């Protein structure tokens, strides 16, 4: 199925990407080619196949991953803000929302 420029624009919008003209032009054919390749999966009848949940081995699934609901240490406000592009008054500052 060909993916046209308006599809690409729609997806870029969903992905929060402000693609330039060149990317809008090249991504369409490239993604179409990849999608065509991916569609070979349709050769397989998977009607009765359970989808994999992802990654975990049987032993991994059996491993208990819950922990007591207790407060533990954190890196703290100062360290958390240290790498922020625009911290202000103990917060992450962003441009206006509305």
């Amino acid at each position, binding site marked *: 199925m060909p993916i046209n420029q308006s599809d690409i624009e729609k997806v870029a919008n969903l992905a929060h*990407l*402000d693609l330039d003209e060149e990317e809008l032009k090249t991504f369409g054919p*490239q993604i179409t080619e990849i999608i065509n390749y*991916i569609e070979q999966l349709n050769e*397989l009848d998977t009607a009765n196949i359970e989808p994999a949940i992802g990654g975990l*081995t049987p032993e*991994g699934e059996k491993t208990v991953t819950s922990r007591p609901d207790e407060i533990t240490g954190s890196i703290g406000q100062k360290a958390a803000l240290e790498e922020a592009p625009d911290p202000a008054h103990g917060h992450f500052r962003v441009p206006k929302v509305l």
Partner: protein
Amino acid sequence: MSRQNVEFSITAAERLNETLNAFLEIDREGALRRAEEIEKGGNAGALAGIPVAVKDNLCVKGFQASCGSKILGDYHPPYNATVIERLIKAGAVVIGKTNCDEFAMGSSNENSAFGPVRNPWDTMRVSGGSSGGSATAVAAGIVPVALGSDTGGSVRQPASLCGVVGLKPTYGRNSRYGLVAFASSLDQIGVFAREVEDVARVLGVIAGRDPHDATTAEVPVPDYTASLTGDLKGARLGVSRSLFGKGLDEEVKDSVENVIEVYRELGAEIVDVELPHAKYAIAVYYIIATAEASSNLARFDGVRYGFRAEEAPELRQMYRKTREEGFGPEVKRRIMLGTYVLSAGYYDAYYRKAQQVRTLIENDFLNAFERCDAIITPTAPTPAFALGEKVDDPLAMYLNDIYTVTANLSGNPGISVPCGLSSGRLPIGFQLLGPYWSEPVLFKLAHAYEQARPFTERPPISAS
């Protein structure tokens, strides 16, 4: 000794970096200080004083973690990844952070925002990827050990192209806490070294359950070096003939066929197995990996860390400009593809379908491992290709991972071992895949081959 080893590594890293571009950051002063502390403090850990290079998508306190991306740039994480904590406790000294494809997305290292790594065997060729810097650092003799991450082959493929050993452990074997996530159901941290024994030793240090990563399994960590017995009596090695067909370079094919003969001579029984769904692995991978990546990379929005685009007066514009300017083309392409396959109306056709075929791939392995202890395949279809050769053809680049992605989809462990040079003097590697938690079997098999046919060649660009 510690200080001497570390100084040698740092000097070599600095001297060769102009040629190889393997390191994005080298910490001379800090590493020497830590080496001295270890010497004075008498740390007798399993890796005391061993210099280590770490892929730049793993968090090491005091170092940057750029992930090869402009969007993280000089981001300095405030904590250590669990595997790093364990390495440091065992006495290892991190000397630097290695170059990689941006967010570990790529098979050639050409997707790094900081230029490609060059292969020490031929600097006009790729190192492989995405952990190309780590593979190169070990191949050039800069460090004895390096860490990388493997989501579709990103440890094993560059190991093969650079002529070193590279391991992707079983999913859940070690903690990804502090690894910048690409595709969470596929990512594993892997190990590079010249020899199998060193890989085994390092895995013994970093493996095991970690409450910070819920996918780590409660499975005991054995003494992996104890498995290096050289005794292959009764070992059954599976060969899937359909993997030796179209697209496989003749020299790579002959080389891996020779390895199979060596195993036969060493006493292993060779059995035919089938992996009927392996040919669908790349298609499945590029749905699941991109879908997960589009979600994982949503966090890079210019608010909490890293790069923020200037001159965006409104929040959504700031997000969009930051991501457009901060991410490179391959990362954007994968975010787009992942967003597309997850978007309304397509989820069942792509994502659900891919997860169903993933079940079939898992079952292929379960069936195959009823008949054998491990499966042997090539690691990569060709030796290292030329820089620039595949940059304009994403699909051709993706097909590099044809032999490695299956193990990420199913969660099985895999190891790449060098098995000679091509006529153009480029390394060739073979891969062993095993059942869940079979790292001791893989080490035993890989080590036995290594003892029988030691890979003693060294690249022209080398530290010593």
